């Protein structure tokens, strides 16, 4: 087998393996999503609400460093 044939083989095999890997990964993703705990249908209909958190009056610096 000469170099040209070897390169052709590498390209063809890589293309086919990449496409197969893409399909398999996609199926793995779908299976992972299927295994996720089911979410309640009620969640999507829950009213959106705000809870405004009032900062303490003496709020000053961040916890660890002065980020200003």
């Amino acid at each position, binding site marked *: 087998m000469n170099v040209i044939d070897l390169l052709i083989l590498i390209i063809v095999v890589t*293309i086919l393996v990449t496409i197969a890997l*893409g399909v398999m990964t996609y199926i793995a993703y779908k299976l992972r999503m299927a295994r996720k705990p089911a979410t309640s249908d009620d969640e999507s209909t829950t009213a959106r609400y705000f809870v405004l958190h009032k900062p303490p009056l003496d709020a000053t610096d961040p916890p660890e460093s002065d980020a200003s």
Partner: protein
Amino acid sequence: MPAARRRALISILITAGMVGGTALFIFWAVHSPLQVQRFLVRLVMISLILFLAILFLRYFALLWFAYLQHSEKTIRGGEVSSFMPPVTVIVPAYNEAEVIDDAIEAVLGLDYPVYEVIIVDDGSTDTTVTLARQWEGRHGNAEVRVFTKANGGKATALNSGIAQAKYSFVLCMDADSSIEPQTLRVVMPHFEDPSVGAVAGNVKIVNRDHWLARLQALEYIEGLNMPRRAQGFIGAVNIVPGPVGVFRLDAVHEVGGYDVDTFAEDADLTLKLITNGWKIIYEDSAITWTQAPTSLVDLIQQRYRWTRGILQAIRKRKQVLLRPFPDFPLWLSAMEMAFEGVVWPVLNVYAHLFFAVVALLYGMGELLLYWWILLTLLDLVVALITVSMEEEELGLVPYAIIYRFFFILFLDVTKTLAAVEEAFNLGMDWGKLRRVSLTQDAGKG
């Protein structure tokens, strides 16, 4: 059967159907009469040339407009603007405990006279809100406020932040991103032009210590930022990216904020702004660092959501695709999104498959080899130009060799399957990716 399992089963059946259909076609081609086989050989040769021609034209057009944008920016680079109105920074967060501190710290490091930071906790089930609340109050030029709401998705979190914004311009970003200090200073002068509705920033990959993340770093430069730069030249960037986008609040209110009916709320809002005649600009100095998935399944999960989200945004405007006038910028943006999101990926997968099979069966391997060498050279040249334009690390350029050969082809398989699922209108979940603290990543820059 739970909905998630049912959806997965349907998806797998569709995938199996497509793979089976393709295999059947190949089987038919092999066993077809000699005349048909001769026709296929001719078809392959023409397709190879056409494929290269389309790719070349696409690259040439994008590079030319990107070059014009880059030149224009270089020419007016010395101009100093004093336009620095106060800005509201909105950070939507859902279960971002790992990264929220880094994000807030980066935002508070912005070099800008007056701004406020609104953290919108979208009903997190971890300690995101507790961590965020520790930052509440005034920090130098910035004031931090934290809100919490029931989980409703990113678009609702952004809308909530927009509703609370005190200032006339909003910077929307992701909680897993780390923004560069100069961002607002370089973006805001664009808004001196009253027709500019939004400015898209430059998203870069931070975790470059992994080969897959390095490939994505190159992809962001060559595949995402270069088209964005080209679109910016004509003021019609079609996606203001989620990790960094600055909007004129009036423009956002005018179009009704973010819609909640797509999984690509950034693309959808951008198209709405273009529809209303707003110019969308690209600013490459407005840099934000974001994390790239480092496992193939996580990557597929992200791209699946992007593809379906973009298709949902296009589907909402499908009538636009057939009508270039009078709304030409919108038509151009939607067409480009459709081409990049569906047409090209599908073409790419089937072209590669077709070429590989025919090369094997009909002894046309040499033609395939030269075709591949030309394609790779083209990718290397474009990578070199775009990496130079962004003053990025040259070490990313060699990745162009496997960029199209493996990476793009791999992603295009997902885009193809996601497009088919979107055509069938299958339900989907957001799919939260795993995060790691940005401070753990040493490879920034």
